[in-house]
């Protein structure tokens, strides 16, 4: 392929507005008098992996809720792969390749692991309203099993979710977010409450994701965050006050004072 074609392809792509995976402009979210997010502006490139750090109540989860459409922002715009999705319902954003996990697992506890993952695969493909049961060799059934294997839950695929351990539920939570063809994933504290071994598995899952899949990960554990992220955004009181490479953030005095409580290690 000649460089000329490469340039014309990239030109066409940028002309089509595929510039950024995620672009927030002046997003504000108020709950009554409380401003959970104030004038948040973020740009994340396709395939970029970013960590969002911040103290409790900084507004990190609220940021995710606005991006996925769980809440509508009070003001500001949200663009997903160049498309203005500010007023889209959640399911429309998900069908465009956005995914998320929840800080507190939101699973279907009365259904089996397989049914949970199968629903996730169904949600982002056609036939959501199908009244016909899937057949044995159904490709969606196949991909559900592959996903279950990827998060190491194959042995308990037919177990009800309510009988799973906490760590297994967290893993299932991740599987639900990777169904279909994700393009951008929001991970809300996926490592919280996991054992060191489970943490290592999580880091492995995240670093092994195909490189075109970008994500934002909210993570209190600096070790995990800095191993799986290329860039870091710092939040405090509903604002993003610093962005940069992990090394810059770690050595930043303001960050040390606000977030790390004057030092770490």
């Amino acid at each position, binding site marked *: 392929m000649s460089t000329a074609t490469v340039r014309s392809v990239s030109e066409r792509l940028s002309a089509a507005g595929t510039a950024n995976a995620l672009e927030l402009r002046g997003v504000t979210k108020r709950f009554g008098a409380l401003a959970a997010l104030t004038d948040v502006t973020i740009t994340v490139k396709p395939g970029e992996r970013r960590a969002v750090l911040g103290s409790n109540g900084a507004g990190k989860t609220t940021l995710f809720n606005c991006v996925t459409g769980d809440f509508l922002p009070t003001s500001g715009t949200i663009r997903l792969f160049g498309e203005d999705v500010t007023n889209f319902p959640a399911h429309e954003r998900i069908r465009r390749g956005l995914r998320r996990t929840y800080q507190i697992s939101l699973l279907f506890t009365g259904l089996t692991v397989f049914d949970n993952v199968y629903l996730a695969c169904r949600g982002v493909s056609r036939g959501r309203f199908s*009244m016909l049961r899937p057949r044995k060799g159904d490709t969606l059934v196949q991909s559900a099993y592959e996903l279950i294997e990827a998060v190491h839950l194959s042995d308990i695929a037919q177990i009800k979710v309510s009988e799973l351990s906490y760590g297994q539920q967290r893993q299932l939570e991740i599987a639900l977010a990777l169904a279909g063809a994700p393009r951008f994933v929001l991970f809300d504290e996926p490592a919280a409450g996991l054992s060191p071994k489970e943490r290592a598995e999580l880091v492995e899952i995240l670093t092994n994701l195909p490189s075109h899949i970008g994500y934002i990960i909210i993570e209190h554990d600096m070790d995990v965050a800095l191993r799986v992220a290329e860039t870091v955004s710092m939040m405090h009181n509903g604002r993003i006050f610093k962005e940069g490479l992990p090394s810059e953030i770690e050595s930043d005095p303001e960050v040390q004072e606000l977030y790390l409580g004057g030092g770490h290690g």
Partner: protein
Amino acid sequence: MAVSDSPLQSEAETRRTLATRLNGWVQSIPIAYWVVGAIMLLMPLIANDFFLYQIFGWAFILGMIALSLMFLAGYGGMVSLAQMSIAALGGYMVAILGDSGATSISLGWPWWLNVPVAILVAAIFATLIGALAVRTEGIYTIMITLAFAAAFFYFTRQNYTIFNGYSGFGDVVPPRLFGVNWRDAIPFYYLTLGCATICYLAVIYVSRAPFGLALQGIRDNPRRMAALGFNVVAHRITAYTFAAVIAAIGGILLVWQNAQIAPGTAGLPAVIDILVIAIVGGIARPIGPFIGAFIYVLLRTFSPDVLQALSMAGDRYKLLIGLGFLVVVYWSPDGVLGLWDRWRARRRRRDPLVDKPEAS
């Protein structure tokens, strides 16, 4: 390559796998189901015409209408009080589009046209109700659907051009298909048994199909379902449409059974009765509404006699039904089905003392 396979051999193979699959399917169904199925099929040998037509026929019909509520409430978490009205609309449409005593209104369409159109009209009506009701939760869903039920009742009573007002329609009978009079006890028994079985199996089948599975997901966790790409509102509305088909079949059979339909068919007492039937039977599984309907029909039919024997006013049967409702809801919020499940669980726990311990 496939060419090397002799066609005969592969055909035999398909037949063999079909046979094993059929065998596996047969074995996967518990014996109790075969027993109940056989008893139901042979019932006309034991029961008299009154039982076949008035007890079983009616119980199957009310069971179907309550089943449509069970589908919405049990799988979708939506309690709709409009199911009886939807059923009655189906019944009305058969009278209006087909033949009835009110010859100036009825259009006289053949059954193969008026029955599907009646179901379609009921389904559209239910979809409209659903479109308004699914944006509300809990008590508000109940209120909105109750408002629809009340409006339907008063509208049918006051509208003479379409619904023939207070008197409704008489002489609405099933078609004489295959030369059978389907209002005879035995044919009617099999007709209602067949329809009830199909509806029952359809609900069980759909509950494990993507649509039903997603509906249960929405019941448990609508927010997560939206975050998985499901359109929660559209899914809930479709549940109303699906349930309406079942209710409408019940409504049409009800008209044929009574040979008439009038506003009272979907009056508020009838609307409440469907709720009572579903709750008393249990809405956790599709068999519940049929159990509830059977109990209701037995009480409704025989309690006047029992009360009179006890030298009380016979028309106090509603009191008995009400008391029964109270007892069941008090002792077992999940209905007779819940009582049964708990009794079985207790027996299973006791079993190891006498029997071999259960494999687990």
